[in-house]
């Protein structure tokens, strides 16, 4: 039993420091795992300290609740497939938000509604935000788990309706702050917040879910921080707010990486019921997925084997020197890099050779088509730079295509394909390329030179 509040405060401070280090580490590829462990240590300290507080009782209930929750957590986290990870994050985020709301409710109940100004504001915020986070996360989970349709679900007047509900919840909150001390008011507020959470997330399409989950994650952080105000706990305030702030920034970064504004993600569905949100959707429902230099950089840095496939676009962009620099950088990191030269890449025989020789790419890194094609299934990343026709699978599969019969580079056999070009425009043969729609393909749009320069910077940073 610890009775000295200073000791408790110090132990909590240690936990805070752990959380700060956890965040720092989590933002670097090298230390990320360590980050999770440090965070775990902080959590253990925080929980142990709390359990040791003077006067804590109801041990059976605490242990029962803890064990049940932990078992759910472990089973959920352990059994789920890697591809289902995002919905797990949503789920565990939601329950956190729910817990915050419930803690607020309990405190309100214990105090009989008779709370000071600071406390009541915090209680209302905690209940409101926590509930929205809980309900929103559950909807996100259901959508990702495909219990609900991933497509945006919208109805007319939704906009007005949602705002109405939110206003209602806020009005109840104001009433509570103003002195109303009826518990049902708080419960009603929670109910409205839950409804709002559901309605808020329903219209958002599946592709945008990660951004929404990140936002709800930040919300839960804020709710936890508000709980800290209710309980006068600096640790909760700090830890919750760290998550709140970094979660907000993260949400921004994620939206930016998708080239969208947050507003567009959250409210994009309204008014454009037909088109749907998320990426450029083609007829058969497959989407073209754009990526960012940073993402590609991490993929490249952690790859074992990268094959660079240069095409006419590389020549147009005159990015030969940059591509060699990128390759050298990767080799320094221990990545195995080769260049796959298609016999008709470019616009004249040997076009790629001229370019790459100018950039001093060693001849032995240049692989002929027949030599490299068997390697693609073992390739982690195929980096297609301004090539199009020479990697078009239609040449293999579509007898109606004008390029049918031309041998191509089998980049689609690589684990991941990154295509760098300026647009979805076709190449010399003037035909579309199915490769760009494959699930393993992501597009890095922009002039090849600019993109590679950005990539170099990002690889260095990662």
């Amino acid at each position: 039993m610890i009775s000295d509040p200073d000791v408790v405060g110090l132990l909590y401070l240690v936990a805070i420091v752990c959380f700060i280090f956890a965040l720092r580490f989590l933002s670097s590829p090298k230390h990320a795992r360590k980050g999770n462990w440090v965070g775990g240590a902080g959590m253990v300290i925080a929980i142990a300290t709390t359990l040791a507080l003077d006067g804590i009782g109801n041990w059976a209930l605490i242990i029962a609740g803890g064990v049940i929750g932990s078992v759910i957590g472990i089973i959920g986290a352990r059994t789920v497939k890697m591809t289902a990870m995002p919905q797990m994050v949503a789920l565990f985020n939601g329950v956190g938000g729910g817990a915050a709301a419930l803690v607020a409710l309990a405190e309100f109940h214990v105090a009989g509604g008779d709370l000071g100004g600071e406390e009541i504001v915090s209680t209302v915020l905690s209940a409101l935000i926590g509930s929205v986070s809980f309900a929103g996360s559950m909807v996100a989970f259901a959508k990702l788990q495909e219990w609900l349709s991933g497509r945006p679900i919208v109805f007319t007047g939704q906009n007005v309706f949602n705002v109405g509900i939110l206003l209602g919840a806020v009005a109840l909150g104001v009433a509570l702050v103003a002195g109303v001390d009826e518990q049902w008011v708080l419960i009603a507020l929670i109910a409205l917040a839950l409804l709002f959470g559901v309605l808020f997330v329903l219209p958002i399409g599946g592709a945008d879910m990660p951004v929404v989950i990140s936002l709800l994650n930040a919300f839960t952080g804020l709710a936890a921080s508000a709980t800290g105000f209710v309980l006068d706990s600096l640790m909760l305030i700090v830890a919750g707010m760290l998550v709140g702030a970094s979660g907000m920034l993260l949400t921004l970064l994620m939206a930016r990486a998708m080239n969208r504004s947050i507003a567009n993600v959250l409210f994009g569905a309204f008014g454009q019921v037909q088109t749907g949100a998320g990426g450029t959707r083609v007829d058969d429902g497959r989407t073209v997925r754009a990526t960012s230099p940073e993402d590609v950089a991490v993929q490249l840095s952690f790859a074992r084997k990268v094959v660079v496939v240069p095409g006419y676009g590389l020549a147009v962009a005159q990015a030969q020197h940059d591509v060699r620099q990128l390759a050298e950088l990767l080799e320094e990191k221990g990545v195995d890099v080769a260049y796959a030269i298609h016999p008709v890449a470019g616009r004249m025989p040997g076009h790629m050779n001229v370019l790459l020789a100018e950039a001093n790419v060693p001849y032995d890194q240049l692989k002929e088509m027949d030599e490299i094609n068997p390697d693609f299934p073992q390739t982690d990343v195929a980096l297609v730079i301004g090539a199009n026709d020479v990697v078009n699978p239609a040449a293999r599969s579509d007898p109606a295509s004008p390029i049918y019969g031309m041998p191509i580079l089998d980049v689609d056999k690589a684990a991941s394909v990154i295509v760098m070009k300026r647009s979805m425009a076709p190449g010399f043969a003037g035909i579309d390329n199915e490769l760009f729609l494959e699930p393993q393909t992501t597009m890095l749009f922009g002039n090849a030179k600019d993109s590679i320069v950005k990539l170099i910077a990002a690889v260095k940073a990662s």
Partner: protein
Amino acid sequence: MRPRESAPGEHRVALTPEAAAKLRASGFDVVVERGAGVLAGFPDEQYAESGVALADQASLLEGAEAVVRVAKPSAEEVGALPAGVVLIGFLEPLTDTDGIARLREHGVVAFAMESIPRITRAQSMDALSSQATIAGYKAVLLAADRSPKLFPMLMTAAGTVAPARVLVLGAGVAGLQAIATARRLGAVVSAFDVRPAVAEQVQSLGATFLDLGVRGEETEGGYARELTSEQQAEQQRALEERLPTFDVVITTAAVPGRPAPKLIPAASVDAMRPGSVVVDLAAETGGNCELTEPGREIAHAGVTIVGLTNVAALMASDASRLYARNVVTLLEHLAPEGTLALDFEDEITAGACVAGAPTAGKGEA
């Protein structure tokens, strides 16, 4: 059985030992004329090593189903061909109508490398491209060898040598390769072509596109359409102004089936600086320069004008290698698994056949 025979006055050979071996592997019987590859650097022993039969000219054609060569056969040689035989080579279908007629009369099924349609699938049979690549490279070497100036810029204790200024007219396959090669040597390169798409291609090689204010059109096959006479005059005028600033001019402009466009009239040559060099790769079809004498190298007012024809043949070894690969791919197309199976519904077979196709004249110009 598909023997192969070499053309007189031609250093290249239509099958290299390596290509012959490849054919054998695909189920062909290959007979090669004795000594056919010597001038291209492939002595008979090498053929023998790759398991190819060698024969003298006399017995060569016995039982041949197909004959592959580089240049078109002379009248006598056509006479010696067995009727119904398949003939493959540069047959000049658009210009040598007599030769084609002769082949047709003789009952030869003739495939002209020039007539293979320029479709994606046929790229590996495209001998015009492969030989133009060699010619473009060689043209720069010819020019550099004849120029009294160094191509690269050098700043030395004995003063600075300014880089040579090279102009490439016609930036098709040969022109682009010439641009690349001259740039490699350090020259400052400009280029012009009438097809609009070329400007970007020139820049993609790091050279400057010279804007002469003349814009032509591109046909389906990627070739240029002939300019109108006003356009042509306009082009000559614009060029004449700029030519004196160049040390080396390499011309490759061509329009299939037409005499080479005259880009450089005699007056423009007079305006060039002494010591300048013109390499005219279009000499075969009359030359892009008025003064070009096909097959010869002349000097005019201090300007060297190289009108060598068949420039690719000057690099016989690599030129033969590429040509042989083209021929092998075509043969494998015409005779999958080594057995002739001509399918005249096929775009390539129909397009390349210039004599002896079932519907007479189908493959003709």
